């Protein structure tokens, strides 16, 4: 079976005819849930990044009496919080903070996870065993508590929060990348690359890595969702930047008043929920588009 023709067809997968390339897009569009997720995410991005451009008022200013319920005449549409601030305005501004912290964290997670997974999967043997033990160690750690300790020790700056989320969340990505590398490295096109004398670095970066992109892209949408939840949890516990109120932080601030003021806790929490849900729906749709066999799992 290992004929020359097989090698060429596999090596040429990146230059498929355009019709086939759009097939994934079409399958994604056919998945109603995934399209819904994409629309939802679009709306959230508009609320977080476009709308604030048109609003010049101070988001932290007093606008109406404390604990004004939503849809009260004369009050802001989503009511006010325990300091009489406009909930809608703060939640709108909170989006970018949440998304940026989670976004950087997700990038870090993917980078660390993919690197470790690639090394373990490609080199195998002792390298693999050591790296997998390290991965197991980090996977077993109670992530949120660990991040809590790191942030408590090193201070609650955006950088420490990103790093704290990053160091506890990469193991699943590493495992996925590793298994993908192990699968790919046995395939003909990698053997062919080796046969023409490509260096290990070239094979890892230029030959195998591009073939793991589909899986990494799916994983990054899911990772992004997980990172948002993680940031929200940390911020809820008070580990966030008090000047840039992320959604989770804002829920934490309003928590002690939630018996009189249910809206100031539920609305930012709902935004976290919607954002993570939209990302998961997209990730699920992409997964189906890449690997239709797993559909419905």
């Amino acid at each position, binding site marked *: 079976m290992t004929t020359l023709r097989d090698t060429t067809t596999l090596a040429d997968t990146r230059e498929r005819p355009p019709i086939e390339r759009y097939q994934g897009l079409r399958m994604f569009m056919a998945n109603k*849930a995934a399209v819904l997720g994409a629309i939802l995410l679009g709306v959230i991005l508009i609320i977080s990044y476009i709308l604030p451009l048109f609003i010049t008022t101070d988001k932290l200013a007093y606008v109406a009496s404390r604990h004004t319920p939503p849809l009260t005449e004369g009050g802001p549409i989503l009511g006010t919080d325990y300091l009489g601030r406009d909930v809608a305005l703060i939640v709108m501004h909170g989006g970018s903070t949440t998304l940026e912290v989670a976004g950087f964290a997700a990038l870090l997670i993917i980078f660390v996870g993919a690197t470790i997974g690639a090394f373990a999967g490609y080199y195998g043997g002792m390298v693999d065993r050591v790296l997998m033990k390290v991965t*197991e*160690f980090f*996977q*077993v*750690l*109670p*992530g*949120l*508590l*660990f991040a*809590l*300790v*790191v942030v*408590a*020790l*090193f*201070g609650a700056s955006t950088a420490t929060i990103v790093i704290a989320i990053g160091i506890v969340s990469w193991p699943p990505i590493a495992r996925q990348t590793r298994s993908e590398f192990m699968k790919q490295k046995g395939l003909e096109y990698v053997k062919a690359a080796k046969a023409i004398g490509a260096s290990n670095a070239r094979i890892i970066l230029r030959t195998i890595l591009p073939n793991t992109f589909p899986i990494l892209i799916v994983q990054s949408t899911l990772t992004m*969702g997980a990172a948002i*939840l993680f940031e*929200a*949890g940390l911020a*809820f*516990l*008070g*580990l966030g930047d008090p000047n840039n109120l992320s959604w*989770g932080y804002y*829920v*934490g601030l309003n*928590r002690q008043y*939630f*018996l009189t003021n*249910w809206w100031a*806790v*539920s609305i930012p*929490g*709902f935004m*976290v*929920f*919607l954002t*993570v*849900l939209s990302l*998961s*729906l997209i990730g*699920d749709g992409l997964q189906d588009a890449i690997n239709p066999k797993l559909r*419905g*799992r």
Partner: protein
Amino acid sequence: MLAIATKIGESLLLILAVLVFNFVLVYIAPGSVIDALSAGSLGDASEAQIEAVRERLGLDKSFFGQLFMYLGNVLQGDFGYSPIGNRPVVEMIAPRIFPTLLLAFSALTFAVTIGIAIGTAAARRPDSFLSSGLTVFALIGFAMPVFWTGILLILVFGVWLDWLPVAGMNDLRMSSRAGFFERAVDTAEHLILPTVSLGVIFLATYARLARASMMEVLQSDYIRTARAKGLHESKVLFKHGLRNGIIPIITVLGLEFGILLSGAILVETVFAWPGLGRLAFEAVLNRDTNVLLAILTMVSVTVILANLLTDIVYRLVDPRIRTGGRA
């Protein structure tokens, strides 16, 4: 047997690694315990006093000297002193362990049993709404921030419907002479909402896993054999199906235990549940590093032991692993 011994050895090494890691974090962290102290209660301490404290805490020793001192202390059950609680850390932590384990165990039981029940029902009718909706339910369950779910549950069931207690582990008005049974019922009532908030994250995941695994199991030949023997369908499903179907779930259980205990921190904070998580939240607020580190150690050890336990259970359930067979 050898495999289990190896696993136990690995677990001990992991625990050691956690301790070393803890220590290194504190070692490289800016601001020592002394700084935290001098900012707080010891604000007017003299240089000489601070030097005395440094010596008592061994902060004048080398890296390895301090590491071995730390490990030695921890092995003797000494996690240091909490200036905030004004007590040894061990005394603060000990009474918090049981509530956290109770909550974690309860949430896990809830998620696993209901999840398996839903997943099995869905696997029997792959075309039903339940089955096709399961993926979306799982995504929704995953997307809900735990603290938010908790607050919503309190608002709905605690405040508006006023069905269930929402804070603490026992009713404060409960007389101290209340019997064990009365106390247990009260605790159980207090446990419901925290259990649901924490369990719901995993519920859909387990349901999905159970569906996938039971669908495979129900198509297998040995299920047909069990039916051909004349067994009742419930026996076919539970004795022959489930025992095989839960094997993949058990493997995931151990891995998710860390996430479970992480979630417990948030749930305990929301429900004022007197466990380790609530203590961790207080320790963060008070910058009580010793307590925080001790909790991290305790929880990590718990997670590692839970992993060991699931590994042993997995071997008991699946004879193919236990007896080292091929298939």
